[in-house]
């Protein structure tokens, strides 16, 4: 047995190795540590991210010479005028409507699940639900997308299930609906919508769950104690306190839908969304100025969205 004085800890005082001196320096000058930790990320955001954003903004004012295919670096508004063409306006409108529909649906689907996970699920059940929500994010986006293509196809699993349940008429009726229908689910706006909702649902569940977890249990008990029925507690306490989570989640679902160009390419009725137009203009057409101008549309829409959300008090409980 070692006695208490026979200790393994070496005395620290006086031992001034280089690591020790570095530690003293950082302790004495806290801003050095802060700079070392925040410097790289600020550099990334400040120079690379914001820099490319401003380059994009600048490009939107240039134009493409139709004859040579070269970018002409002269400030002008021709791209913005082109944005107002009916076909482009139509794409912008379709994309925004889709983003709103996807966001609303994700909110409605995610809320009960997030509420259950935050307030009722315990232990293994909670872990299982967590994994169920996260699992899709572990596999490739493209794999999941093509899996959905098979599920939604005319001969696919969903149509087979509808037949087995003698609900083919329902599927046919849905597909016959103008604007959202099509020859099959995988070639309809409805299909695009279903896949968008599936893809972004985890991004809505997790922030709402985090917000609901932060509500102290006693707050809900107090509401009931003071005479509020469960529906009143939901409306007056749970919903306002979960709003920052809904707002955070909706920023994800809304902006991801606005910017995506792969889902509508693989599944849908071949009408164009903003992302696809940007992709084609900068790729095949090589019209980077017009692509830049069009990609400002989602930025502006998101800006308006955040402004509205703030005005509605979505961030008050933060």
């Amino acid at each position: 047995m070692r006695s208490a004085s026979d200790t393994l800890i070496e005395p620290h005082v006086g031992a001034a190795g280089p690591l020790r001196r570095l530690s003293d320096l950082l302790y004495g000058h806290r801003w050095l540590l802060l700079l070392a930790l925040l410097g790289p990320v600020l550099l990334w955001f400040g120079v690379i991210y914001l820099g490319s954003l401003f380059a994009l903004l600048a490009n939107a004012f240039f134009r493409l010479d139709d004859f040579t295919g070269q970018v002409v670096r002269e400030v002008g508004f021709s791209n913005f005028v082109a944005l107002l063409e009916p076909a482009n306006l139509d794409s912008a409108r379709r994309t925004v409507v889709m983003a709103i529909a996807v966001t609303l649906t994700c909110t409605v689907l995610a809320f009960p699940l997030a509420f259950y996970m935050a307030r009722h699920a315990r232990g293994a059940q909670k872990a299982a639900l967590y994994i169920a929500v996260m699992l899709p994010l572990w596999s490739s986006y493209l794999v999941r997308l093509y899996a959905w293509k098979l599920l939604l196809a005319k001969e696919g699993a969903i149509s087979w299930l509808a037949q087995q349940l003698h609900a083919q008429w329902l599927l046919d009726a849905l597909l016959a609906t103008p604007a959202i229908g099509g020859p099959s689910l995988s070639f309809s706006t409805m299909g695009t919508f279903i896949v968008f909702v599936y893809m972004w649902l985890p991004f809505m569940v997790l922030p709402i769950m985090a917000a609901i977890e932060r509500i102290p249990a006693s707050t809900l008990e107090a509401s009931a104690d003071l005479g509020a029925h469960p529906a009143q507690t939901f409306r007056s306490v749970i919903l306002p306190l979960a709003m920052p989570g809904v707002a955070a989640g909706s920023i994800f679902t809304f902006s991801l839908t606005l910017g995506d160009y792969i889902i509508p390419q693989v599944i849908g009725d071949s009408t164009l969304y903003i992302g696809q137009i940007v992709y084609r203009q900068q790729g095949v057409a090589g019209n980077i100025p017009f692509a830049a101008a069009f990609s400002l549309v989602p930025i502006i829409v998101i800006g308006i969205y955040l402004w509205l959300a703030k005005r509605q008090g979505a961030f008050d409980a933060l």
Partner: protein
Amino acid sequence: MTAAVSLDRVSCTFGAGAQAVRAVDGVDLTIDAGEFFTLLGPSGSGKTTVLRMIGGFTLPTSGRVFIGGQDVSQLPPYARPVNTVFQDYALFPHMSVRDNVAYPLMVKKTPRAAREAKADELLAQVQLPGVGSRRPAQLSGGQRQRVALARALISEPQVLLLDEPLGALDLKLREQMQSELKALQRRLGITFLFITHDQHEALSMSDRIGVFNRGRLEQVGTPQQVYDTPTTRFVAQFVGAANVLDGDAARRLTGQDCAMLRPERITLGPSSGARAEGQLSEVQYFGSFTRLKVQTPGATVQADLPAGLTGVAPELGSTVHLHWDASAVHALAAG
């Protein structure tokens, strides 16, 4: 007098099988209307579970709960005529103080102007005029406490449940709130059921105290009864300081098999007529009194000497002689 609250063989068990914990074990209790009743007990003794069963947040495993004569055992909290002041106040962070206080009227669909006027009136009653438009986060702990109180009182409940409401306040504020709460209770005539683990709070505020231990009520009585004539060893030791003597020492010093002797009833004196003598092993100074620990054969006896009466305390290790009046000895059931 009608019973404001009564519990009929109420038990509550958490968990199941081998891990089952019986938090409350067959409690019978009647609280009279207009009474200030305190449930006193250590943490984990089940007193908060009793409050939660009266409030409706936890349902009893067996037994029945009555409020104002009505069986509410299975009713949800919003259907019970009681309101609660929570330990952490449980104010709604996204609402103004006024909206917090007016919340019970809001859910009853009282018009805005009427409920805001009433809320301001309540805020004035708890000495918080003019803070109505602030958020709870902008208030101090003591102010939040008062807001929680105003909110619980606005719908004039038959019974107010207070779950260790003063626990988070500092000593001075706590003492001030104690007398304010007592005065408020007298003025409003509402039944208060107060939960605390602080014996001073219980003794100074209550009409009656129920001492709780391991899910059972050990004793119910006035503060004097509980302090002077405890029925069990636990009550004697938990409420105030006590010398609990048993075995040979008890028989030799008190003539009982098991007895309680309050430290403040013991004095020092000459060797003639002394009931015990021993070596002074510890002296603790508390300002208003000095606590001595005296090693007597078979037992360590604690004596509290009031300040100003004894002069300088004797030296550590010296022999002292203890005196007390025969009436100071209170016999306890042995065991």
